């Protein structure tokens, strides 16, 4: 304190500080005004007259205000303390070296962006084992990959190259960059920013990719909704992801997506952005896409590779959704490392049969964006549309599920259309029947057929390479992607780890406990077998194993045989509870002959050499199977009806 005296000795009270503090602060040297230049001429009268404005000493202030000098000194120092802003020094950090301070460009630290608590919670889910993170970085598997960085590179180096082709519309990389930049600015104008989750429910159209890239440019996180999702899924997934905005169609084939979202009780959802007819309460996508304040003009910070940018749901649209967060390290590193393995280049034209809401389709986009290839869009899959798109768009690389190919084969579309532009077809999304793979290879002989195994959690984990040949591709998913490791447990389960692996499910600790082994490997839930050359074949799902009185078997081989039955379109074998044996096998089937019965099915299987203990003991005919977007049967939704055995 002043002169070493305390407040009681000086006689200063809080009331005095409050009463006189501002006056003393202004009279002191802290605020100075000089009129003219009186010292130049040693004009003492003028100097004396302006003394108060030039800043008075404590003694002079004391005489002016009627306090003692120690009191003035104490109060002045307290006021300087209260007015002192230690953070002001931050204003210097971006100045100098040719950069000048400009008021309009400066934002106070207190007013700067802050991640909200939901964004922080999501980032908390991005926790990796330190030794693995270090290893991935040291190996170069994790690098400075961002979609914004990749896009900027193409805009700069090959602006006229086609980026997106949809029918007659061709968008080059320069145009794509501009669209992304403006939409990111528009989204920013809605108050969306880094870490915000933005949901997208769109078919595979231009606006999907522009939205995805704009969300990434913003540093926000995209979560996807499948086109068949309705109010129930909206409520669950938008709620769980804490989505702040939804980009959707005004009218999704008769489903009022935007209106539905607006009608839900979702307190976190701030904006519904609609493409199509104007919807009351929704923001028009076109309005945002035409924003004049682009991300670059706004100088929005660029995203970094460690930021989460994708939140995908694998299952559970009701009680316990499993949300998989990815950052650019896990997701884009996998694409960068895979591009060369798949022999993709900037000259490729890539088409995805699955929707972008599914990871496999996003993987195709990541590969295209990394290489600078063109994305040929198929808005909604139908076999004829896929065939026509490949033919007219002269696609060179096709990402497809086995069911897509089976449908095209079944409709004879390989004979009706020209598929000869294809040099690569990657099959993934569900088990690949070997016969089907051979059949496709025979139809497009100059195209390398490969098989990829991946999950939302792993992206491209295993895949055969274009040079492996059809026998390996038809019989296995090849070997691990660069940066990935695979092992098969004693129970036959495929377990993986690597730079492409997600860190943990978001907001679902129960799922995390079950998903990882004690030593950090991810349990895929798939059964697998490895051949002498290290190629890994997926043979089924652990939870599909039938345990009939202690005899366990994988129903996959039965299903493969049944899919070759002349009257069966699709089949799925699931366990059904049994009081005596514990479980018995029940076969669900979509059949062309509605009179097909269990005896005929069993006779067919016995003829194929199947042991009696593996024969299904109940047959349920259904009109259609519940399917994932990649045409994989969702066995969990096959409900045993309370009906007598067929």
């Amino acid at each position, binding site marked *: 304190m002043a002169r070493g005296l305390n407040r009681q000795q000086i006689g200063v009270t809080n009331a005095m500080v409050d009463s006189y503090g501002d006056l003393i602060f202004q009279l002191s040297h802290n605020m*100075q005004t000089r009129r003219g230049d009186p010292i130049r001429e040693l004009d003492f009268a003028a100097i004396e007259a302006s003394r108060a404005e030039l800043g008075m000493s404590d003694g002079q202030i004391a005489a002016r205000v009627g306090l003692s000098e120690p009191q003035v000194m104490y109060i002045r120092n307290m006021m300087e303390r209260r007015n002192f802003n230690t953070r002001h020094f931050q204003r210097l950090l971006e100045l100098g070296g040719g950069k000048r301070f400009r008021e309009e460009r400066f934002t106070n630290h207190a007013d700067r962006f802050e991640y909200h608590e939901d964004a922080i919670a999501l980032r908390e889910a991005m926790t990796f084992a330190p030794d693995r993170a270090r290893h991935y970085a040291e190996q170069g598997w994790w690098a400075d990959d961002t979609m914004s960085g990749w896009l900027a590179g193409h805009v700069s180096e090959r602006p006229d190259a086609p980026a997106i082709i949809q029918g007659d519309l061709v968008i080059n990389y320069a145009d794509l960059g501009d669209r992304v930049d403006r939409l990111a600015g528009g989204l920013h104008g809605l108050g969306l920013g880094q870490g915000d989750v933005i949901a997208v429910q769109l078919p595979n159209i231009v606006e999907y990719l522009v939205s995805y890239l704009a969300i990434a440019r913003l540093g926000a996180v995209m979560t996807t909704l499948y086109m068949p999702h309705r109010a129930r899924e909206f409520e669950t997934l938008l709620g769980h992801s804490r989505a702040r905005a939804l980009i959707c169609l005004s009218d999704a084939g008769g489903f009022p997506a935007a209106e539905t979202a607006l009608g839900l009780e979702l307190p976190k959802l701030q904006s519904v952005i609609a493409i199509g007819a104007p919807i009351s309460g929704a923001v028009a996508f076109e309005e945002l896409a035409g924003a004049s304040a682009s991300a670059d003009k706004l100088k929005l910070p660029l995203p970094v590779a460690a930021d989460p940018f994708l939140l995908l749901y694998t299952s559970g649209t009701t009680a316990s959704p499993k949300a998989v967060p990815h950052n650019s390290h896990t997701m884009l590193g996998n694409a960068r490392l895979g591009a060369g393995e798949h022999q993709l280049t900037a000259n490729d034209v890539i088409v995805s049969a699955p929707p972008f809401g599914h990871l496999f389709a996003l993987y195709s986009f990541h590969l295209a964006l990394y290489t600078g290839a063109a994305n040929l869009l198929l808005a909604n899959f139908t076999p004829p549309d896929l065939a026509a798109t490949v033919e007219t768009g002269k696609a060179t690389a096709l990402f497809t599920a086995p069911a897509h190919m089976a449908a095209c084969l079944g409709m004879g579309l390989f004979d009706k259309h020209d598929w000869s532009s294809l040099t690569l077809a990657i099959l993934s999304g569900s088990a690949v029947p070997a016969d089907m793979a051979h059949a496709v290879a025979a139809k497009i002989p100059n195209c390398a057929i490969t098989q990829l195994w991946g999950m939302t959690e792993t992206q491209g984990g295993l895949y055969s390479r274009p040079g492996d040949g059809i026998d390996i591709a038809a019989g296995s998913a090849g070997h691990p992607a660069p940066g990935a490791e695979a092992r098969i447990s004693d129970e036959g389960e495929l377990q993986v780890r690597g730079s492409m692996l997600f860190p943990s499910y978001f907001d679902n600790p129960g799922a995390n406990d079950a998903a990882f082994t004690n030593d950090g490997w991810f349990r895929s839930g798939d059964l697998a077998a490895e051949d002498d050359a290290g190629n890994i074949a997926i043979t089924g799902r652990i939870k599909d194993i039938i345990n009939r009185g202690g005899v366990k078997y994988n129903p996959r081989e039965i299903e493969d045989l049944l899919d070759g039955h002349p009257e069966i379109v699709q089949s799925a074998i699931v366990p059904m509870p049994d009081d005596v044996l514990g479980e018995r096998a029940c076969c669900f089937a979509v059949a062309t002959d509605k009179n097909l019965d269990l005896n005929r099915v069993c006779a067919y299987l016995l003829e194929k050499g199947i042991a009696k203990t593996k024969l299904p003991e109940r047959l349920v005919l259904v009109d259609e199977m519940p399917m994932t977007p990649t045409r994989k049967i969702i066995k969990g939704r096959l409900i045993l009806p309370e009906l007598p055995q067929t």
Partner: protein
Amino acid sequence: MDKDAAKDSAEDAKKTILDYCLRKGALAAGVADLDALERIAPPGHRPSDLMPKVKSVISLGVGGQTQGAWSVPAKAMGYFGSTETRAYTIAYGAAFLIEGRYQTPAIYCPPDMDNEKGPRVPLQSLKLHAEVAGIGARSLAGDILLHPEFGYMYFASIFTELELPPDQPMETNPCPAPSCVSMYRQIGRTPCQKFCPVQCLSGSIDEDGKQAEMHYDMAACAEMSQQYEAVPAMLAEAMAAEDAQGREDALFDPDNKLLWYKMSVGSGGLLAQCFECMRVCPIATQAPQADPIRRSIAQTNSGESD
């Protein structure tokens, strides 16, 4: 008093002392009018308050920055504050010269703050000494002194009981420079006013292109140039934090940790000006001898050698 010194007139003594200062590296030196200082400086900060029998106050200035310094980022410029020690060294030497040659008491005027008054109140205003001695004039940039030939300088003072004839303040104030007047006429602000990071400067220029008013928010300026209150502020912030995370953030965020580091090695915080007003000042950066490169060229052109 030595034999030669005894023959010196006051004028000779003045020349001897000022020549010493210039020879040792000062760019300019002069003698301030003591009566003027006594009238202008507030009580407690007059020369006689420091040295009761003082008869003369000598002021000297050394060069501000090298030309290269202006290209350095602002965060690094904050450390470019040691130039003034060159002035202090010369002043120390001059005080020893005076006592040794003229056997008259002299002191090197301490540039430090008055520890009774707090960290922003100096014992003596070196700036006032220099201005009255005619080696600088107050600018619109918070009264930083500028010189038409040498730009801006760092100053030091010597007090002595030796009576020396005083100099007069500079007749013409180089601030504002013609380009600054032109800018002011167009946008109402001079470069220093426009580019100050905390907007602590404002004022006006009259019809003759002279300074009319200069407003200076020294408190805001001090926040940019000094971090001496950062440590208690940081501790207060930590104590007020709601939880352990908040306390940790308050004490160990990168900015604050830098301060702890500097305290631990005893070098103190940043104490230099932020320099942004000088970085854009045409006098400070472009005066004929504002930096060593310009001085070297000037000397070469005038046929002198360094």
